[in-house]
Every structure is written in structure tokens, then in C-alpha cells.
């Protein structure tokens, strides 16, 4: 079977299998870029540490290829509005767009971004040494695939619409000095975690665990972190809401305990406040994105340099860590699609992945995480490599309607439970009708 046929067969299996076959040879890298020399690729990117790192390596791309890159950097929470407005025009200004994983299905469903298979099948553009199979599998599945039986995971009909660039999973970070001083051990299970929250706060005098908690996406993200390891799901196999099951209730209970024993003000915390509380020494633990690994060792931002240890995201009924972060896709209305693909391919190549990781970005490839020099520079990556085995691609249902469910339904009920306005059970039960309505409107459930 030819590589093209494999890719067309759909899904990651095809893409990964294709990576094992030799690509069409004879196209030198310089030939690939010659036609596009002098063109400018416009990228839509967020203010984010990974993309700060990317800006440091972009001059290498321009020097190597002659293709210029222009960046439109905006706050992450305003990026989607602007991208949709831009990508809905007949011809847009963006050639390459960074997206949060939750938007991929909506963008693809609205025909705003294009599948990548035609580019990877084009011998004039594709790099024969690209090695798709080297990209962290969980990242590639969750960040790139749209379609399949669940619309956002691998399977028949799934197509690759984007590549992970700034992807992440969750790890537990803890203050080694505080844990040693008071005789605590890093929690390995949720029972361990529950047991140490109150005594850790009492003995250390600071919050036990920092967490997000602001209404909307932030508190839902915090709750999902616990829902998956505790065995819960948002929907059952027939798209019926089941988030108010016992596992959902248990996840919200532990989040409430974390909020009550954490640094003051968690129900108002976004990601920034959560990170700040930990790096400024106001919390003894952190359980969220691996983004923290770069920040704790930056003396200009951290008061806990050299005092932080890492452990796996605690086990509930199973190990299941977050799968999320950022990816890159090519808008359908891009002016320079081919040049944009060349930039995308270059950025996510083995060599550039090592460069961006050295510059403070997130690694997306196993070869980077196994590179001895990288491991010497970032010894904490050992725990990351272990954690990546437990990345849960179905961590949240990234259907096109997820943003509305996330922010306007779950994000209200969970927030009200965190502030005590509603009980834990009522916080979840109160939004079931709204979520059911959204699912009926989306055609997942019968009206």
C-alpha cells in the first residue's frame, strides 16, 4: 500500500505506518524551499512561553530557507475570536494559526483549516526525514486528529488537521524542602493526596496545592484533572451526560478540598495565578501542566529555584494525565499555504524540536526527550517521559460544542460548588439539562 493510500485510509494508524515507508526521494531540502524564497508566512500565535521560545529559533528558519515569518501575537483568550473572524474571510491574513486543542474540531467542522495529508504526500514539499512516528503519540492524536467515531480521536475517517506545537500533559510538582522538613512523601495516589492536604497546610503554613478555579474553562480544567484518574467521563458512549456520576462528584469533592486547603482565593484563580502561587512559594504542591518545569527554575520568576521535585500525576482508579495545549494548523484561506506548510514542517522537525526545547519550549518528539544532551540539561524530563505513558487522549470530549459546554454550563455549576453557593452534587446536577440541550442541538442526542 502506498503512503498516500495509507494516509487516505484515515487516522493515526495510517499516518504512523506511512512514516515507516521511505518517502519519495530525490527532493533536496534546498529545492523544496527555492520556490518560496522571499515569501512571508504570517503566523497567529499566543503570548505563551513555548511561542516565546519559538521566536528565538525563527531566524534560523529564515536563514535556512529564505522564507520570512511575521508574527501576530495576541493574548490567548482573545485569539479564537480574531482567528475565526480572519479565517472566515475569502482570503485571510494568517498562513499558519496556533490553536488550543479544544478548537480543532470546531475549526475543521467549519472548514476553516485544511487537512495536512495533501502536503505530506507532495514530494515537492515533504521532508523524507520528517519521521511522524517520533512525535509523542498522545500529543499527535489529541492535537491533530479530527473525525473518527468520536469526531476528535483516531479511527476510521479521522484526518490530520494540525501538529502539536506547545503540547503538554500534567505532572505533580512539590516542594522538596517542605516535604522533607515535615516528613511528607510525594502523593502517589489520590488517597495519599487527600490525606496530606490539610496537615500539609497546617504544618507548612502555606497552601497545600495550587489549582485553577476561576469560573468557566479554568475550574472545568481543574475538575477534569481529577475526573479522569478517578474513572469518570463527561459523556457515555451514547453522548448522554454522565459527569454527575459518583466519579464526577468525587472529583469535585477533591477539588473543593484542594480549594479549601490551598492558597487563598482559588475560586478566582486562572492559570497565571495558580502558577504564580507555586513559584512565589505560597503553595507546597502544583498539579497541572508541565509548563511549570521551565518556570520554577527561572530566577527572574521563581522563588523556589532548586527546591522543586516532580512525581507522576497521582493514580486514582487508574493513571490518566491531561492531554492538551497548543497546535499549529493551516487556514483554508491562507495566501501562502505551501510556505506555511514548510514552516510547520520545519518547526516540528527533529532538529527544531531540540532547538525549541533548549530555548525553553515544550518538547513534542520522543527523540528530543531521549536525547542525552537534553536530558543532561533538563533532568526533570525523566519523569515527563514516564508521565507521557499515561497521557489520556480522551481527557475531555473535544467536540465542536465543547467550548459552550465547558464555559457556559460546567464552568458555572462547578464554580458555584467551589464557592459554596451550591452543594457538590447540585453543582453538577444543575447543569445536566443545559448540557443535554446543547447535545440535542448538536444532533448527538435525539431532540
Amino acid at each position, binding site marked *: 500500500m502506498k503512503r498516500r493510500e495509507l494516509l487516505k485510509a484515515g487516522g493515526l494508524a495510517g499516518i504512523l505506518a506511512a512514516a515507516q515507508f521511505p518517502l519519495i526521494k530525490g527532493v533536496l531540502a534546498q529545492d523544496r524551499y527555492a520556490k518560496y524564497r522571499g515569501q512571508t508566512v504570517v503566523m497567529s500565535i499566543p503570548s505563551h512561553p513555548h511561542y516565546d521560545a519559538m521566536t528565538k529559533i525563527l531566524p534560523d528558519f529564515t536563514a535556512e530557507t529564505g522564507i520570512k515569518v511575521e508574527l501576530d501575537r495576541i493574548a490567548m483568550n482573545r485569539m479564537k475570536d480574531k482567528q475565526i473572524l480572519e479565517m472566515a474571510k475569502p482570503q485571510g491574513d494568517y498562513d499558519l494559526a496556533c490553536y488550543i486543542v479544544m478548537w480543532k474540531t470546531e*475549526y475543521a467542522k467549519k472548514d476553516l483549516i485544511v487537512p495536512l495529508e495533501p502536503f505530506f504526500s507532495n514530494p515537492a514539499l515533504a521532508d523524507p526525514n520528517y519521521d511522524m512516528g517520533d512525535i509523542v503519540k498522545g500529543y499527535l492524536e489529541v492535537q491533530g486528529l479530527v473525525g473518527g467515531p468520536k469526531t476528535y480521536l483516531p479511527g476510521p475517517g479521522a484526518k490530520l488537521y494540525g501538529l502539536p506545537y506547545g503540547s503538554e500533559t500534567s505532572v505533580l510538582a512539590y516542594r522538596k524542602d517542605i516535604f522533607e522538613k515535615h516528613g511528607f512523601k510525594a502523593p502517589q495516589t489520590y488517597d495519599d493526596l487527600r490525606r496530606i492536604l490539610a496537615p500539609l497546610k497546617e504544618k507548612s503554613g502555606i497552601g497545600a496545592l495550587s489549582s485553577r478555579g476561576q*469560573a*468557566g474553562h479554568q475550574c472545568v480544567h481543574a475538575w477534569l484533572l481529577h475526573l479522569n484518574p478517578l474513572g469518570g467521563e463527561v459523556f457515555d458512549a451514547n453522548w448522554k451526560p454522565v459527569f454527575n456520576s459518583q466519579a464526577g462528584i468525587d472529583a469535585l469533592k477533591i477539588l473543593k478540598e484542594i480549594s479549601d486547603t490551598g492558597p487563598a482565593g482559588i475560586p478566582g*484563580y486562572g492559570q497565571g495565578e495558580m502558577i504564580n502561587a507555586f513559584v512565589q512559594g*505560597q503553595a507546597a504542591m502544583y498539579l497541572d501542566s508541565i509548563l511549570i518545569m521551565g518556570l520554577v527554575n527561572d530566577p527572574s520568576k521563581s522563588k523556589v529555584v532548586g527546591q522543586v521535585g516532580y512525581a507522576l500525576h497521582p493514580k486514582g482508579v487508574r493513571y490518566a494525565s491531561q492531554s492538551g495545549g497548543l497546535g499549529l494548523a493551516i487556514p483554508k484561506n491562507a495566501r501562502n499555504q505551501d510556505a506555511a506548510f514548510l514552516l510547520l514542517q520545519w518547526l516540528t522537525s527533529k532538529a527544531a524540536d531540540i532547538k525549541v526545547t533548549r530555548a525553553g519550549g515544550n518538547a513534542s518528539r520522543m527523540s528530543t526527550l531521549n536525547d542525552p544532551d537534553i536530558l543532561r540539561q533538563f533532568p526533570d524530563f525523566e519523569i515527563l517521559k514516564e508521565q507521557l505513558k499515561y497521557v489520556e487522549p480522551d481527557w475531555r470530549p473535544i467536540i465542536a460544542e465543547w467550548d459552550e459546554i465547558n464555559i457556559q454550563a460546567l464552568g*458555572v455549576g462547578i464554580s458555584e460548588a467551589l464557592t459554596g453557593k451550591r452543594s457538590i452534587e447540585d453543582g453538577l446536577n444543575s447543569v445536566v439539562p443545559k448540557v443535554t440541550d446543547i447535545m440535542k442541538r448538536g444532533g448527538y442526542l435525539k431532540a
Partner: protein
Amino acid sequence: MSTNSRSNARAAWFFVLPAMIVMFVACLYPVISAIRLGFYDWSMGTPWAQAKWTGWTTFEIVFSDPAIWRSLWTTLKFAAVSVSAEMFLGIALALALEGNLRGMAFFRTLFILPMMVAPIAVGLTWRYLFDAQFGLVNALLGVFNVAAKGWLADETLAFAAIIVSDIWQWTPFVFIMVIAGLAGVDANVLEAARIDGARWWTLTTRVKLPMIAHVLAITLVMRLIDAFRVLEVIYVLTFGGPGDSTEVLSMYIYKTAFIGQKLGAASAISVLLLAVVMLLTWLALRMSNPLSDGENRR
């Protein structure tokens, strides 16, 4: 009508027409488009050809949603409290600083600075000020031995926080309007009142403020309209939370349009917001009738 009158009327239309065209294009057309959009189900980012005509259904669904009426109530509370406080403080400051005392020009400039700051920056600034761990507000409370509070983590405190930030930003607007109004008060009238024995309180409440009532009414209307449209600061400070306790109508419209991707429904709610603002404006203008001339006022 005489030839002369007809000619005058034509000339009047000739001069007014450009302004009318600009008003139509810049104001009326978007409003009409928004009302029209309310009759469609259209998701942002999809071609207009995919929009579905829904007739009154969108309005029926939207207006039967309790969340909208909760948002409207939150907006009314927010506007009532913040605008009242801004009017009171702005008038008080203007009265205190209206004289030509030494250094007053500096303070006047200082007081209007918050108004010039971009709303997003105001939101971010107050978000840091209200931070439970590192915020200046809790640090100041600590000086008086008051326990630190999670300002943005509690429904009542978060509501207070958005009001405080609005008062901080927009009291200067009231101040500048009132001080301009006071500068136009006839000094002879004030002198006559003083000769008649009026003291400061009487002079202020019986002479100065009534003489600038039209300025106060316009200021009130403009602040009310702005308060009903407030979005950016709340977006940054609380994003409508905790729960939906600070979800004003503009925030709800934003979420419906950009998160729920329901532009038709968002437009239908915008029509409601427009109606409420128009009603309030009409009431405020009727109370003071500032646009009529002196003859009509008498």
C-alpha cells in the same frame, strides 16, 4: 409654502443630508443588521449561505432563558450602584476642586488619568490589586489587622470588586463634566445668592446644581449607557464568575456569540440591551429635558 421657504428647506436638507448619511451608515445600519440577524441561526465562521431563518423562534428561546434575566438583573444592580457612586463622588470632587486654588490644575489632571487607561489594562491592574495572595488591597487591609479576603473568589466580594474598578475608572468622567458645567455658571447669580445670605450648602444645592442640571442629566445618561455596555474589565477580572454572579448582559452576549457561536441569539439579546438602554435614556432625558431650549424649559 413660498418659493423662498422651499428654497430654505432644500438648503437645510442639503446641509443635514451628509450627517444623516453618516449616522445611517455608522449607527442605524449596524442596529438594523443586528435586529435582522436575530431572526437567523448563524454560527460565526460559517458562510452566510448556511444561516437558517428561524423567525421569532430565536427571540422566544432567548427570552425564556432564565440566565438572561439573571444577567439583566446583575446589570441593573451593577449600573445602579456604580453610576450612583460615580455621580456622588464626581460631583463632590468637582465641587471641592472647582476654585482656582494653587495646585488644583495638577490634581484635576491627576484625577482624569484613570479614564484614559484602556479597559483591559484597568481589568488587569485591578486583578493584581485584588489578588488574594499578593494584592495591594489585602496588604492594606492587613495594616488594619483585617484578614485577607479572596476578592475574586467570593460572589459578593467579586461583585464589589467590579463596582470598585468601575468607580475608579469612571468617576473622573463625572468630575470633568461637572467641573466644566460649574465653570459655566454665571458668577453674578452666585454673587446675588451670597448677598441674599446663601451659605455653601444652600448655594450648592439650590443654585449651582440646579443650574447645571442639564449637564448632570447628560452625564448620568452617558454613564448609564456605558455601565450597561461594560465588558472588558469584567472579562479580565472575573469572566462573569464566580458562578455567574458578575455575568452582566454584555458578558452574556459575548459568551453567546463567541463561545456558544450563536450569533442570532446574541443579536436577539443585544436588541433587549438596546431597548433597556433606550428606555433609560428616554427617561433620563425626559426628567431634565436638556435638549430643549430655554423657552421650552420654562
